[in-house]
């Protein structure tokens, strides 16, 4: 684990990605602890729609709330949803993919066709459908995004799991009489960590974007809780008078996705068995 982090830090794009993710996590943590420049929900009515200045680094909004403080909270909110939903998607997708590959036959067919059906919908449309049924909110966003990305993980796991299942070391384990649980966890899952790690990082970027999209449409995080997508939505009518209200949240979203993508690319380079063999 430390080896992977060390290698990531040595990798040029990995270092940039890790730095961005680290910065976001720090900002989010400060936001959660209330260590923002100003209270995030407090309305400074005198300073409404002030541009970036020494006391409001990123300006204020229509209600006089400090944009930077709200952004810090918004990052926390978006990251929470992204991490929670990807965690669920990883768990569900891995279990489904692993069992489809291991059991094969009818199980494989039914499970993977189900995943194909989910995958056939555009991500945001499927999320909209789920929210339309259940109603908006943080928890619904997490569930919707998790369901949308589960099939991707199921596929990422099933392919390699099918080939691992045929390997000699799995046959060897059968000859010792190892339990299925042991074979699945030690021989299959352990060898799937590398492709999963790459997929998780990339999925975090997509989840961040999907969450922003849902909130922008008013279906994700509900006001007054700040979230990146919501702040973008609120700024759209004031684009001309107060461009900072749009620029900073938009930059934050872009930079966050860039961070995860760079890390994902670097991870793929590092965990690729071909490059690994050369360094080993």
């Amino acid at each position, binding site marked *: 684990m430390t080896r992977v982090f060390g290698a990531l830090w040595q990798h040029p794009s990995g270092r940039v990605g890790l730095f961005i993710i680290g910065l976001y996590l720090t900002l989010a943590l400060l936001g959660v602890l209330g260590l923002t420049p100003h209270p995030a929900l407090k309305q400074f009515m005198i300073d409404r729609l002030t541009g970036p200045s020494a006391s409001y680094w990123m300006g204020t909004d229509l209600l006089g709330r400090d944009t930077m403080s709200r952004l810090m909270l918004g990052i926390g909110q978006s990251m929470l949803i992204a991490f929670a939903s990807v965690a669920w998607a990883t768990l569900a997708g891995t279990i489904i993919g692993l069992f489809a590959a291991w059991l094969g036959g009818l199980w494989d067919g039914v499970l993977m066709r189900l995943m194909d059906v989910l995958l056939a919908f555009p991500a945001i449309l499927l999320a909209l459908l789920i929210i339309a049924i259940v109603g908006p909110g943080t928890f619904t966003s997490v569930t919707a995004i998790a369901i949308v990305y589960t099939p991707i993980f199921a596929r990422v796991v099933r392919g390699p799991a099918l080939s691992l299942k045929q390997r*000699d070391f799995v046959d060897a384990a*059968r*000859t010792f009489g190892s339990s299925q649980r042991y074979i699945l966890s030690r021989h299959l899952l352990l*060898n799937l*960590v590398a492709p999963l790690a790459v997929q998780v990082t990339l999925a975090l970027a997509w989840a961040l974007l999907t969450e922003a999209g849902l909130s922008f449409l008013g279906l994700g995080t509900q006001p007054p809780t700040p979230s990146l997508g919501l702040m973008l939505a609120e700024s759209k009518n004031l684009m001309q008078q107060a461009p900072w209200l749009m620029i900073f949240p938009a930059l934050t979203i872009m930079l966050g996705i860039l961070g995860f993508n760079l890390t994902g690319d670097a991870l793929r380079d590092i965990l690729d068995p071909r490059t690994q063999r050369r360094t*080993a």
Partner: protein
Amino acid sequence: MTPLLRVRDLHVGFGRDPKANEVVKGVSFELMAGQTLAIVGESGSGKSVTALSINRLVDFGGGQITAGSIHFQRSDGSVLDVTQADEKTLRRVRGSGIGMIFQEPMTSLNPVHTIGAQIEEAFRLNRGLTGAAGRQAALDVLDRVRIPDAKSRLAYYPHQLSGGMRQRVMIAMALASSPRLLIADEPTTALDVTVQAQIMALLAELRAETGMSMIFITHDIGLVAGIADNIMVMQQGVAVEQNQIDAVLDNPQHDYTRHLLKAVPHFSAGKAVRTDGHRVEGRAPIVSVDDLVVRFPVGRGLFRAKAAVHAVDGVSFDLQPGETLAIVGESGSGKSTTARAILGLNSHQRGAITTAAGRSRRPIQMVFQDPFASLNPRLNVEALLAEPAIANGQRKDAALHERMQFLLERVGLPADALERYPHQFSGGQRQRLCIARALMLNPDVVVLDEAVSALDVSVQARVLDLLVDLQREFNLAYLFISHDMAVVERIAHRIAVMFAGQIVEIGEARGVLADPQHSYTKRLIAAVPAVERRNQHFAVDMTQVPSLVRQAGYEPPEARWRQAGIDHQVRVEVAS
């Protein structure tokens, strides 16, 4: 006369600083048109890299020629320095000037095209044959490399063929371009001896027909003895000895050449069989197999499969404690399937496999052919060795740790090995690890499926010695699956010869090897390559392996056996 190929002071390096990481350190040789050069060495000696430099394929593997020259005479008489040529010229040279056969048959074929399409493609690119002419040429060349049912095989995909078959397809494709120089990189390592002998004979014949030169890379001196004109022995990137073949074989100058010649397992037709541990008539067997049948259904009918591959058809034998029964045969003869059946790893088997109560709950353990594939790369040695014990309800305690240490020491691995991961060991060490793992449960029987085939000759000899020692110490019975008669001669007490899913001859090792009765056994023994037999003439034996695909419901006629000696039975051959 200008040589076809002249290599001067070739240096090849890898990595970021190729000058510092040289794998080939100043190799020079010449090759005349129509001659064959054998490059011999163990893995890591730089023999493959040298060969790959000749058509600059080494560039694609991350290598770089750091010094030296390679002059290749093209068909129009001009001489090309390959080290200076650009990619476009190189591509033309690779297509028609220098053909290549690789070591790894699975990765060299495109898995999404039928082999027919791939061979036809080779003919279309190299000879401009299209349509029916291309198909006919593909069919002919498949026949020449002895692929049974050539016509229907054209529609097969690579994964439907065995490793040996795939290599034959590769050779067929290389032959399609009729190159001036053919580089063969361990082309027969994955093949059976009888096929190997045929391929060698075929290559020799092609060389005579076309005047093609060959560079033959191998770890097996005995193999090239019959075909090469010159030989170059390599060790750690340096050519330690090169001369005419007779001079090197009869009067080796360098210590390493002598070592190699000694390490090559010599087949001596039953004179070197083991003398310890004899079979005691009437003793209760530890495993007995009675009428084992394994059939894999192929082709879907409406309700059930229409036909089946009869991989194993009516095999019976028994194994006494402490003895080695070797099963020899070609790939596809069903020997590995038999081994897997004994451990219950096949899904379509019938017949009785009776195991006497052993020392542990799982008295039969197995060692696989490929030590790289049979160890999970993500687990360290401690976890690998603990697995069989945990699977059988033992706790990870001091006693288990002690047993691991004991077995590691016993198979000749360092004590600090427990913390390490499989990729930190060499092939031979990994196979020792697999042996230690198989012994963790204190079994009575160990099934060794081509367990030493993937190892270098000198490593192979040491692992064989270890196996014999372990057998005596723990009173193990071995079921030793192999295609290599010389190896079998060293370890077997009894030998069963399998052909097309059936045992054709079984009996005491000396009897079977010294006095083979069945025509297939005779052919198998005649095909064993050896330094001493280099002046023998190999004829292209076109005997076809019968197709194992049978209609559903087919049962083979009952076998009749003939006694050829005490403990030596031969299946009576039916004229067909």
